[in-house]
C-alpha cells in the first residue's frame, strides 16, 4: 500500500510551501513589518509562482495602498487578505465530471498529461459506480493508444481505439456509438496534444467536437488539461482552446512538483474557467478536487 492520497496531496503542497514559505518566512522572521523589503519579496514570490508580472504589480500596488490606509496592519493580515482575494477569482461552477451522463473531450497542448488524466478520471468515475467508456482520439502520437490501453486496464474500463493515423473524428464517432450500445454514463475521449498556435490542428479539434455533439446523446463537455509548470504562455493556451471549442473546465496537472501554477489565477480572472481537478502524482488515485483557498495559500506560501 502506498502513501494515502491526502498525505501525498499535503506532501506535494507542503513542498510548494516549503519552497515559497522559505522566502516568506525569512520575511516574517524579520517581523510582521510592512517595509519595502517585504513588498519586494512578496512581488518576487508571486512572480516566481508564475502569476505574471503585470498582474502581480497590480495586486501588490493595491495591497500597498490598503496597507497605507491602515486597512491591513501587518504582513500576516496582508497575506491572509491576499489568499482570500485570489481564491475568490476562481469560479465555482458545478463539476460536470460528477454529473453523468456526460461525454468529455480531453484537450490540451503536448505533454501536459492528457492521457494520464483520462486514466485517472476513468478510475474516479468507475469507483463512483458509473459505467465508463474511453476513446483514444490521439491517433497522432506514437503509442498513445497503447498508453491509454494500459490506463483502461488499470481502471478496469473498456476502450475504443483505431489505428495510428486514423481520423480522430472517426474514433469519436465509434466511441459514442459504443457508448450508446453499452449504456456508458461517462465517456472520456483523449485527443492528440497540439500547440494552440497550430491553426489546422485546432480546426481538426473543432471537427472532433462537431462530431461528438452531433452523435452524443449526453451533453458534450471540454476539459482542458494544463501543466502547472507552464508560464505566461498558459493564458494564450487557455484563450485559444476556449475560443475554438468553449472550454468547460480545467485540470491542472503536475502540482506535486515545485511549480505553483500561478498562471491559473490569470486564467480564472480573464476567462472565468473553473479548475475541476488537480494532478498531484503519478498514481491512478492522484487526481484531486480543486480547493481555491488551499491553492492560493500554497501560492503565497502560507500554511
Amino acid at each position, binding site marked *: 500500500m502506498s502513501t494515502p492520497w491526502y498525505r501525498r496531496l499535503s506532501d506535494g503542497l507542503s*513542498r510548494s510551501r516549503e*519552497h515559497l514559505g522559505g522566502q516568506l518566512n525569512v520575511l516574517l522572521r524579520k517581523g510582521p513589518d510592512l517595509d519595502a523589503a517585504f513588498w519586494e519579496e512578496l512581488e*518576487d514570490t508571486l*512572480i*516566481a*509562482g*508564475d502569476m*505574471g*508580472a*503585470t498582474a502581480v*504589480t497590480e495586486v501588490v500596488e493595491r495591497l500597498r495602498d490598503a496597507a497605507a490606509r491602515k486597512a491591513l496592519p501587518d504582513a500576516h493580515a496582508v497575506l491572509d487578505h491576499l489568499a482570500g482575494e485570489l481564491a475568490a477569482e476562481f469560479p465555482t461552477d458545478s463539476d460536470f465530471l460528477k454529473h453523468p451522463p456526460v461525454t468529455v473531450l480531453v484537450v490540451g*497542448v*503536448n*505533454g*501536459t*498529461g492528457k492521457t494520464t488524466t483520462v486514466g485517472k478520471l476513468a478510475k474516479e468515475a468507475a469507483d463512483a459506480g458509473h459505467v465508463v467508456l474511453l476513446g483514444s482520439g490521439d491517433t*497522432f*502520437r*506514437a*503509442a*498513445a*493508444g*497503447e*498508453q491509454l*490501453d*494500459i*490506463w483502461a486496464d488499470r481502471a478496469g474500463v473498456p476502450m475504443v481505439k483505431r489505428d*495510428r493515423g486514423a481520423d480522430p473524428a472517426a474514433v469519436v464517432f465509434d466511441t459514442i456509438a459504443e457508448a450508446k450500445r453499452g449504456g456508458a454514463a461517462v465517456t472520456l475521449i483523449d485527443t492528440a496534444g497540439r*500547440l*494552440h*498556435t*497550430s*491553426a*489546422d490542428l485546432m480546426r481538426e479539434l473543432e471537427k472532433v467536437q462537431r462530431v461528438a455533439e452531433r452523435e452524443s446523446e449526453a451533453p458534450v463537455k471540454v476539459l482542458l488539461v494544463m*501543466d502547472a*509548470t*507552464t*508560464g*505566461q*504562455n*498558459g493564458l*494564450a*493556451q487557455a484563450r485559444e482552446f476556449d475560443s475554438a471549442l468553449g472550454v468547460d473546465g480545467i485540470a491542472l496537472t*503536475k502540482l*506535486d*512538483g*515545485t*511549480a*505553483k501554477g*500561478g*498562471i491559473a489565477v490569470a486564467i480564472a480572472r480573464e476567462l472565468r474557467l473553473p479548475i475541476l481537478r488537480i494532478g498531484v502524482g*503519478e498514481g491512478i488515485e492522484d487526481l484531486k478536487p480543486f480547493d481555491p483557498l488551499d491553492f492560493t495559500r500554497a501560492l503565497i506560501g502560507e500554511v
Partner: protein
Amino acid sequence: MFDNLSKRLQDIFSNLTGKGRLSEADVDAAMREIRLALLEADVNFKVVKEFVAVVRERAVGEDVMRSLTPGQTVVGIVLDELTNLLGGTSARLTLTNRIPNVILLVGLQGSGKTTAAAKLANHLRKQGKRPLMVACDIYRPAAIEQLETLGRELGIPVFRGEGADAAGIASAGVKEAVSTMRDVVLVDTAGRLHIDEEMMDEAVRIKTAVSPDQILMVVDAMTGQDAVNTADAFAQRVDFDGVLMTKLDGDARGGAALSVRNVTGKPIVFASVGEKLDALEPFYPDRMAKRILGMGDVVGLIEKARDTIDADDAEALEQKLRTAAFTLDDFLVQLRQIKKMGGVTSLLGMLPGAGKLKGGVPEVDERQLDRVAAIIHSMTPQERAKPQVINGSRRQRIANGSGVTVTEVNQLLKQFAEVRKLMKQFQKDGGKRLRGLKLPPGFGQLG
C-alpha cells in the same frame, strides 16, 4: 517563436530611438518596461534583475550619453547582453572518438524526451552516423512502444531490454550497439519531477552505468519560472552538458531559453521547432537574440535555403525565369520548397523587421499553399505549360478536381499571368520595373 517578447522590446526601442538625447529618466523608464517584458516572457525573476542592472549600468554610461544616436546604442547594448544571456557563441553537440558515443537524454515529464530522442537520432543520421535508440523509460505506460514506433518510421533501430532495471537496460543497449556496429547510442530515460529523488537516483545510476559522452536535458520552452529550479536540480544531480529546447514552434515566450543558460551555465544546443521528425535545429544564441530584437536571421534563412533547395533546380529555375519560360509546374516546385523550408510563417519570421509588420508576423494559412498545389495538380500537363488554353469548361473541371471554386482557379491564373508579364518586363528593361513586383500567386491573400 518569441514573437511576444520580440514585439514588446521593439515597441520600447522605437520610443527610445526616436530621441536625440537620452536622460537618465528615459533610460529608467525603458528599463522598467524591459523588466516587465522579460518577466511576462517567463524569464526568471532573478535573471531579469541581473540583466536589467547590467544593461542600465552600461546604458547610463558615458558612451551612450555622448552617442549621436543614443537609442541605437542602447539597443546595441541590449542585443549584446541578450546574446550573452542566450549563451554567447553557439555550442555544438561534441561527439568523441569513442565508439559508440553515448548520449543520454534527461528531463521532466511531458517535456518531449522521447520525440526529441527520435529527432536527434534522425539529425545524427543525416550527418552520416548510425544511431541506436535505447528505451529506458520503463515507467510511463507505452513509452517504449512510442520510441519503437518512431524508430520504425525513421528506420532507426530501437533497443528494448527486459525487466525493471533501467541502468541495466542502458548498459545492454550499449553492448547491443557494439555488436550491431552502431556508432551513436541515444538513451531515452523516464521523465521525472526533480523533487523525485528516486527517479533522479535512477538517472545517476544510468549515467554511472554507461558513462555518456553527452548528457542533454530536454526543456519545454513553455515552462514558467520553475524552469530554472528544475534545470538547477538536474545540473546538481546529473550534471548535464547542454539543453535541447522543445516546443519552440508555438508562441512560447522564450523565458526558459533565456534563463536556463544563465542559471546553470549550460548552453542550449538544439531547438525543436515542429511536430515532424526533422524539425530539430542547432541553436545559435546570436541569431536568436537578433530575431528577438526584430533584426532578422538572414544567415539562418540562407542556410535553410541552401539545405533544402537543390542547386541544379535553382539554376534551372533561374534559366527559366530569364527566358520567361516559367510554367505552373515550376511554380509547383517552388511551393514544395517553401513547404520544405518550414512554411511561409517561419520564413517571414526570419526577415529583419518582420516583428514590426502590422500585428506582428501575419498569420498565414499554410493550407493556402496546399490549395494552390491542388489546383495545379488538377490541370493537364498541357494546361500547366500553356495556361492560356484554359477555357471556361476547363476551369470548371479544374475547380471540381481540386475542390475549390472557379473564382479561386481564376485568381491563381490571373496572378500567374501577372508574374509572367512581370518577368517579360524584367527581361526587357533589366529590372527597372521591379519596384512594382507583386507577390507570386498563393501569396495573394497575405498582404
